[in-house]
């Protein structure tokens, strides 16, 4: 007879049964009777095998001994239970002795884990059927299981790799370091992606290596903690990415080449116009002189010869500047600390000396502002912008002025040249920086702004223009604080 109070057993919150050491049922509680579909007391006096299917070799006393030895009340061991209707259920058992002095009676609490084992078998099926390669590894790095996708990926039969170290699947040169990393992982917690941005390689049975990605997940199987590695062969993805990147590079180069070709053909077109024009004029003038010599109009001949001489001089210097423009792209900027205020002042002094015009100048750049950049390019940029500002001054305005300003932030240095000149029509601004583009009658060779733009680009900067006809023009140059020189048009 059990020492456990009937009331306590009846109110035990889980299905339970009291048995003796031989496994003979003393009493069951209502929840137990419900689980096994029996009537009250139906199993009393019956052996434990009336509701538990024990493997023939395993005696109940051995199980009790196992529990006793472990010191635990519940072992992670699943038994097969059978209900009175013959339905099979998975159960775990909790074994306690209700009274320490009574070693004969054992309270067996029954945990129905049928749901869980269904999940486990679903997991097992998934593992087998998964398209991704999966490998479980124990804390010593020994492969415990592989799924068919993993066998296929690495080219080993399941039996050939289970029991081997996981390092047998990676190229020899990475094995030692992998062992260390694996140890660290098994001591840490949480799941993660393997490699952390490093390239990970696998090695097939054939010795062939390939790039892969691995996600690591900790799982507990029975009592054991394992690592589940899900492995993806990324060879094809990398090839696709590489092809895409190569395509982009090729397209970029084609685009750049197209730009260069367009620029060259624009240059050639403009050069054919501008450089050939004076020769046509000279030929035409000579024809006129010949006619005048025939009629004895020597005064006219002399006047025209003088004009011709000036034209030749002008053409010579135009060719010089066209060549200078073509050369800008091939020079490399040599960098120094540049004081923009000082350079602006110097360039303005040169410019006003040349033009001797009554144009006011305001140098608003801070005296201390320094930027590391190419001084030769800066001089060309500022000099041309000043010369333009003076050339396109608005004579109708009482006072013409040009102003220079500069400032700097973390990444960029900015300077601007503003004037109250005649301005550029808005629709002409995009063209204004083109070579041989002349916007008005006062334009020179049409190279000034093209030269400015080239120099700005050489310093890795950008130039923008804001202008209103009749009010004035402002050019803003943005330069990187640290210039990486590029030999543009290499």
């Amino acid at each position, binding site marked *: 007879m059990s020492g456990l109070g009937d009331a306590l057993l009846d109110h035990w919150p889980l299905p339970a049964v009291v048995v003796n050491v031989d496994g003979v049922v003393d009493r069951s509680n209502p929840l137990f009777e419900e689980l096994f579909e029996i009537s009250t007391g139906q199993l009393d006096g019956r052996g434990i095998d009336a509701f538990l299917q024990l493997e023939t070799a395993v005696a109940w006393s051995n199980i009790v001994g196992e529990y006793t030895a472990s010191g635990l009340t519940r072992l992670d061991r699943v038994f097969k239970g059978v209900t009175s209707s013959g339905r099979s259920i998975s159960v775990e058992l909790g074994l306690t002795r209700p009274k320490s002095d009574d070693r004969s009676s054992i309270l067996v609490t029954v945990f129905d884990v049928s749901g869980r084992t269904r999940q486990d078998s679903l997991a097992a099926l998934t593992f087998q059927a998964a398209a991704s390669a999966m490998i479980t590894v124990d804390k010593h790095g020994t492969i415990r299981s592989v799924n068919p996708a993993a066998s296929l990926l690495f080219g080993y039969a399941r039996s050939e790799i289970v029991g081997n170290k996981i390092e047998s699947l990676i190229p020899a040169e990475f094995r030692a370091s992998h062992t260390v990393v694996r140890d660290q992982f098994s001591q840490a917690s949480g799941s993660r992606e393997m490699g952390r941005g490093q390239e990970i390689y696998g090695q097939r049975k054939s010795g062939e290596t390939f790039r892969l990605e691995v996600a690591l997940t900790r799982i507990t199987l029975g009592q054991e903690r394992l690592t589940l590695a899900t492995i993806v062969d990324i060879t094809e993805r990398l090839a696709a990415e590489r092809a895409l990147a190569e395509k982009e590079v090729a397209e970029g180069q084609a685009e750049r080449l197209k730009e260069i070709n367009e620029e060259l053909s624009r240059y050639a077109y403009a050069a054919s116009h501008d450089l050939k024009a004076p020769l*046509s004029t000279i030929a*035409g003038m000579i*024809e*006129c002189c010949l006619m005048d010599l025939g009629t004895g109009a020597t005064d006219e001949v002399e006047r025209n010869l003088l004009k011709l001489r000036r034209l030749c001089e002008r053409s010579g210097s135009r060719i010089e500047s066209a060549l200078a423009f073509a050369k800008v792209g091939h020079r490399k900027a040599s960098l120094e600390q540049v004081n923009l205020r000082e350079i602006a002042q110097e360039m303005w002094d040169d410019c006003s000396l040349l033009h001797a015009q009554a144009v006011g100048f305001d140098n608003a750049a801070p005296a201390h502002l320094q930027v590391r950049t190419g001084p030769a390019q800066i001089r060309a940029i500022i000099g041309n912008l000043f010369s333009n500002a003076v050339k396109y001054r608005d004579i109708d305005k009482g006072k013409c002025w040009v102003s220079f300003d500069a400032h700097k932030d973390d990444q960029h240095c900015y300077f601007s040249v503003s004037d109250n000149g005649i301005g550029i029509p808005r629709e002409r601004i995009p063209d204004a920086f083109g070579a041989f583009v*002349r916007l008005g009658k006062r334009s020179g060779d049409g190279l000034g702004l093209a030269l400015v733009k080239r120099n700005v680009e050489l310093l890795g900067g950008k130039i923008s223009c804001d202008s209103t006809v009749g009010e004035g023009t402002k050019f803003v140059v943005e330069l990187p604080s640290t210039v990486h020189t590029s030999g543009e048009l290499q």
Partner: protein
Amino acid sequence: MTFVVVDDDEMDRYIARRRLSVFESFGEVYEIESGQDFIRLICDSDGPLASPSTPIVVLMDINMPGLDGFETAEQLRLLVEKGQVPPSVVVMMFSSSENPHDRERAEQNSIIKGYVVKPIDDAAISALERVIESLGPIVD
């Protein structure tokens, strides 16, 4: 017959005038410095080019600041289309360039009747004469 030379280069205008004036039948020669000035003058109902009794042949330089020769010719074509300028005004492009691209562009505008390469030589004069003949007399 009236000639208009639209060219920003003073010497080129001078050369054209000298060559054209050799031929008495060619009549008056006007010199204009820019495309904008030409459009202004051709639209001016009180100007010297208003209601011409003879055809006007415009020698149009290509490379000019502001409106270039093609842009000016295109504006003229639109004016003729709208009836603001009589169709007896025609254009010959007038350039030092023998660039095929420029010749192609000249062919795309119906108002452009020819292409004269600077400086005007005897061949150019004959081409001019042919164009003028094709225009025929002005009716009305």
